[in-house]
């Protein structure tokens, strides 16, 4: 059996990649994808601890996280579309005001 620390290392690596992506990239859609990467890292840690504690609760929490992620993506992409209509761009350096 692969020890839990290995899974947590993968989870930490994925989370740091997501953070780096959010800091480095300027395209709003790619930043969104990096947020998904971070959520997956968190999900991996949840499932790894579910096995470690021999409990199903971690897996149920991952189910809820996925639902929230789906809702977030739907609303977030709708916001990106309406920003694009307004500015003709999804570069977050050009879209730095909350008002249009």
């Amino acid at each position, binding site marked *: 059996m692969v020890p839990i620390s290995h899974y947590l290392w993968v989870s930490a690596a994925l989370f*740091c990649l997501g953070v780096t992506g959010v800091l*480095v990239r300027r395209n709003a859609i790619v930043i969104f994808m990096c947020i998904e990467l971070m959520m997956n890292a968190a999900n991996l840690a949840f*499932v790894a601890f579910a096995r470690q504690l021999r409990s199903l609760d971690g897996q149920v929490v991952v189910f809820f996280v996925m639902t929230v992620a789906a809702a977030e993506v739907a609303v977030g992409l709708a916001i990106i579309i309406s920003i694009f209509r307004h500015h003709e761009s999804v570069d977050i350096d050009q879209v730095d005001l909350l008002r249009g």
Partner: protein
Amino acid sequence: MHLAAPTFAQVLFWACAVTAVVMGALVVVLPNPVSSALALVMTLCAVAGLFLSLGAQFIAMVQVIVYAGAIMVLFLFVIMLLQLSGQGRRERTLLGPRLLGAVLGVALLAQLGAALATATYPSGPGDPAFFSPNNTLEVGRALYARYLLPFEVTSVLLLVALVGAVVLAKRKF
């Protein structure tokens, strides 16, 4: 020195772990958003493989169907709708912020690694449901019994997101 042959669980773990991290790095590095999205699909599938190796069959399948299927299709639709992958729409990036972002990412990894290196992991007494060979049945039981209220609230959340997305993406307010 004699090395023991790796078990199936170890092979599955290493294959999926390496794929997930390499493809995750490609999501950040690749300049074209469509390539990033496809790399993210590979990452999500590799994480689903890791879920399988942890004995979470239901979550692994939901990961492939909902994440790699539905959510990534939504991403690709929006990228193609906005036509972001063409020439002349390149991201303008400066070297300074890029380096700073990479340094901060490595610093965060170092901190998490320091925490992981000293951590100990107690094992729980164990829920008999966890050892059931029918993982989907047991997760379903948990969802409809202990987690019934959060489950119902989730459906309201999805309805609100649905209405919100339609209202936000509408052309005229």
